[in-house]
């Protein structure tokens, strides 16, 4: 008999909607983990994602990682660009998980979404979470497309690696012409993250 204890592996679950930039965001995080000296595995599903369906990706890092996907209740960080998709990830989380969630609902064709139900459920999720309309912060920087980079800045405040690895990863992955904008967005995210980290975790930030 062996004890199937989880080795010291941590993981991030990226969840969103096709077109949200989930693949690029997860690439940046995976690269940062590699630069920090961790072994990294990433898993993504291609195929129908361009057509507006749900998209998710796992990034797992640690001394040695085998499985590219994680188990239920085992994800440490949730990076969700949409609230319904954040709720869909719930089963992967546990009370120690931290969620960075964009306060946004993307409509679904021919379905009326009960936003109150979504918000009530999200409130009931027993994790430390930062639910914020990151689009407002992005607009402050003058570009709605940097939402993910701001969220990455927030996430970096909670992760066990130096922020320099994230900026290095952004440098390597983001195209040169929008690099400065994205670095600004990342620092903006750090400011938000440092702020929320110092407050009571369980309170939602708006």
């Amino acid at each position, binding site marked *: *008999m*062996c*004890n*199937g204890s*989880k*080795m010291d*592996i941590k993981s991030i679950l990226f969840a969103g*909607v*096709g077109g949200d930039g989930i693949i690029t965001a997860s*690439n940046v995080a*995976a*690269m940062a983990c*590699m630069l920090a000296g961790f*072994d*990294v*595995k*990433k*898993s*993504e*599903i*291609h*195929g*129908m*994602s*361009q*057509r*507006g*369906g*749900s998209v998710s990706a796992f990034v797992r890092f640690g001394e040695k*990682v*085998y*499985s*590219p*996907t*994680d*188990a*239920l*209740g*085992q994800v440490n960080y949730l990076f969700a660009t949409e609230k*319904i*998709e954040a*709720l*869909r990830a*719930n*089963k*992967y*989380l*546990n009370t120690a998980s931290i969620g960075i969630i964009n306060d946004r609902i*993307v*409509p*679904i*064709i*021919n*379905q*009326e*979404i009960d936003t109150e139900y979504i918000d009530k*459920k999200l409130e009931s*999720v*027993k994790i430390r979470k930062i639910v914020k309309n990151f689009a407002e912060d992005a607009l402050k920087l003058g570009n709605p497309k940097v939402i993910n980079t701001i969220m990455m800045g927030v996430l970096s405040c909670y992760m066990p690696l130096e922020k320099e690895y994230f900026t290095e990863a952004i440098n390597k992955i983001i195209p040169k012409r929008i690099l400065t904008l994205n670095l600004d967005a990342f620092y903006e995210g750090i400011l938000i993250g440092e702020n929320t980290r110092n407050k009571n975790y369980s309170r939602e930030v708006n």
Partner: protein
Amino acid sequence: MDDRTTKAIISGNEAVAIGAYKGNAHFASGYPGTPSSEILDYFKQFKDVIAQWASNEKSGLEAALGASIAGTRSFATMKHVGLNVAADPLMTSAYTGVNAGLVVVTADDPGMHSSQNEQDNRYYAKFAKLPMLEPSNEYEAMAFMQYAFVLSEKFDLPSIMRLTTRISHSLGIVKYDTRRLDNEKIFKMKKDFQKYVMIPSNAIKKHKSLLKKIEELEIYSNESPINRIIKGRSSVGIITSGVSYNYAKELLPDAHFFKVGLTYPMPVEKIKNFVESVDRAVVIEELEPFMEEELKIAGVKVEGKKYFPTDGELNLDIVKNGLEKCGFLKKDKSKVIFEDFELPKRPPALCPGCPHRPVFDILHSLKPYVTGDIGCYTLGAIAPLSAMHTTVCMGASISMGIGASKVQDDEKIVSIIGDSTFFHTGIQPLVDAYMNNAKLTIIILDNRITAMTGGQPNPSSGFNLNNKKFEPVKIASLARTIGIKRVFEVDQYNYEETKRIIEREINIDELSVIVALRPCVLSPKKIKDEPLVVTDKCIGCKRCLRIACPAIDFVNNKAVIDADLCTGCNVCKSVCPVEGAIINV
């Protein structure tokens, strides 16, 4: 690309391309199919290689076989069901053997993330009697690909490289360089009647020699380091391969592992000894009990599918559950799993501006029986468009339409197929429809690209994988050349005209072909025009919602158009019953 050693995070598919290059492959062909599509895109980036799309997997594999006989290491890529199409050359290439190394890359899709079935292609190795390699991670994908060429030349047989979605589309850290290996042999192209002409008198001998080669391969499999034992500290043994190894190794790091890299022929003797060295041995494999059966036939005492499912992907949770059931893991009762909320599903949909949408809206109104095919447009089967009634395999739309139209008169039959699928396996059924005088309306959605798999070019695109331009194959001209009289081209954005022609042709008792010519809005370039706006005149009838456009929402009893998503295709305006309710600004 420079040839220094780099450390990078790469996907299994990229690793296969790098491995092929390092293994001195010079020629590659294939047909795009999730999860295999990206391999050729990566491979074409290397210098001194020829990479090209074929119209289908059979053509792709045959091109690679021809290049091998001509003395060049070659490979073909395809998804699992693609190997069904290429099964004909696969089976007999086992008889002819190769000249320079030949590798068939097949990517299975357990869990059917983007497929119509989840067949286990390991059976093809046994069926054709060809060696099959199964990597467990990105590094192995690169290394096994190089080994596959060596194996192919050593045994004078094509090798099969089997990937799965979680190998193709998982990424991991690999240290590698892009230098070619120093193992390239010169193979001259030879006219060898007995080897390459599979008439019965030669094939009878070749079958005997194939059986001998497989016997030799069985011995080799027991000796090859690609099938390896990873010693543990506990008393139990796990026999596994591919992605399953990762789940098991993470859950039971102390177990003894027999990691199978050459899945066919199985290293049965070596596993027999392994099983005897442990208290109990369990086989963990995704999909079918392929290894378990091979071992049980040989009398090796193993268990397997008793504890693990035969359908779907494995993952940490499923493997853990199986290991608990068989007693290799203690049941973990402390773990609380958070609720799996009831949530609205977010199915994929045709893009805003997709030229397929108006055709399905028209078919929805006209209510014929629609035999469909495989591509983005299969989404036309989903509510509220609900205008496709069969989807089986690539190219089946026209041929199933022929059969259905021949034997009954109650339903009008429309067959609908995309351009890439038409060139894949739709042309011959079109000829059959003509030859057998089928009374059928065939709609060919010619958006000039293979959109579903990420926008690969096809004969209708006018440019190839290497961006070389050519005069595109004109489907209407092709249909007329066959001899079909009623051939029409339509622009789907002209909704009324398109509807008029489709309705007319459905009601005429003759074979007709309608080619819908609007290009894809996503690929090769994004198309976006000025967005439309809903005015106060909207009566909230929801007619525009029936076209299932992601840009249209319904708020406070009125339609609303998202200006960012709207591409200005005007289809919603065309179907709106109220003049002036949806307008161009």
